[in-house]
């Protein structure tokens, strides 16, 4: 399979400089990025599949002696390319706050309790249909210092490689109907409302397991389109 990576697809991403998210101020380039052709170095990328993942890493509720506190959830979805084709054998890495909105990271000092039964990190590999599945608990919202009374909506961080270094993506999955969306500069850094919606998972009763856990669907679309003879390989 040969893929091309139109630059135009990148319009879905936030700008590097987004004043409402203050930390971008000193952390964005001010000189123009250099447009370059995609060479073999960009069109290839790290290959990590089943060998990178252990069986229990998809279930964040089973990594300690007892179950973590919080609302147990299932998060599943498909990883697709821009043509909608499933991306099998792709590594999906996640990390998140606990149900109280506290990260286990040493730098997080939010005065909410840590949970000795929750680390908040997971890994899975997509199957032949491009599907991944995690079991975890719903992360809590938490305050941050960007502006007065700033709170992040509930979210799970996702990191994927996909078929090349150009399809590399780190993003955040949000939950439907979060009242904090309107106030969150990170969510709103994505300029197009429809693109923002692609970061929001969907409640799914079919994924929901009776008497056990709510289910959510979250599909992820990576850069990459089929290269057909009618298209220029250096499509911009």
């Amino acid at each position: 399979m040969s893929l091309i990576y139109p630059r135009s697809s990148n319009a879905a991403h936030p700008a590097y400089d987004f004043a409402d998210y203050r930390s971008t101020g000193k952390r964005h380039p001010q000189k123009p990025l250099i447009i370059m052709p995609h060479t073999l170095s960009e069109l290839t990328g790290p290959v990590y599949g089943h060998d990178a993942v252990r069986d229990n890493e998809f279930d964040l509720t089973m990594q300690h002696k007892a179950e973590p506190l919080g609302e147990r959830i299932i998060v599943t979805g498909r990883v697709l390319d821009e043509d909608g084709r499933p991306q099998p054998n792709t590594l999906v890495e996640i990390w998140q706050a606990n149900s109280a909105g506290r990260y286990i990271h040493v730098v997080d000092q939010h005065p909410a309790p840590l949970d000795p039964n929750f680390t908040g990190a997971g890994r899975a590999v997509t199957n032949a249909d491009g599907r991944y599945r995690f079991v975890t608990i719903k992360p809590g919202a938490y305050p941050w210092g960007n502006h007065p009374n700033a709170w992040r909506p509930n979210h799970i961080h996702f990191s994927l490689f996909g078929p090349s270094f150009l399809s590399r993506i780190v993003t955040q999955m949000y939950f439907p109907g979060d009242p904090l969306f309107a106030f969150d500069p990170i969510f709103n850094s994505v300029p197009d409302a429809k693109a923002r919606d692609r970061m929001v998972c969907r409640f799914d009763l079919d994924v929901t397991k009776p008497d056990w856990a709510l289910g959510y669907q979250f599909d992820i679309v990576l850069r990459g389109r089929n290269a057909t003879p009618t298209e220029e390989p250096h499509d911009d």
Partner: protein
Amino acid sequence: MTDPTHKPAGITPSQTVGPYYAYGLTPRGAYAFRDAFADPVATADCEGTRIKLTGHIYDGDGKAIPDAMIEIWQADSAGRYAHPRDNRARANSSFKGFGRCGADKNGGYAFETIMPGIVPGPDGKPQAPHVVVCLFARGMLRHLYTRIYFADAAAANAADPILALVPADRRNTLIAKRAGDGAYTFDIHIQGGDETVFFDV
């Protein structure tokens, strides 16, 4: 949401890696989660010159960025990528060519890897030995791509088709300095007078 019977309306947008990625992406023994990626990048069974690549990551005020994460992707010593798109025969080694490092409190990073070989480039022209870099950080809503070339490959660098696209007075920002035997330093300045060249890919 994506309808499986239709072409997606667009890609999933990027969001910042944030300040707390380490326990998921670079636990390195500090957290109760296994590392997924081999460290060092150089494997015991791969051929090539062992090198140590170190540097620091700075913001627009010249302050170190402790919550940055750097990833590298590179060819083996014969210029081959461990990827199905590179269909040339590969050495029988476990070298994968990928490394990930979370910055330390001084914004520092380090990789132990091998010197990459010459890689095929556009229109059949060779590319000088280089490492592709993805840079992530809190305060970056999207990752940045840059490349690391090597100071002692001056002739190959002068003929490199990608370096040729970079204004001559900025090319030095892409070239790692030699810092002793097998050691190279490459600092990244996200912004400012010494701003590193980043690529629009």
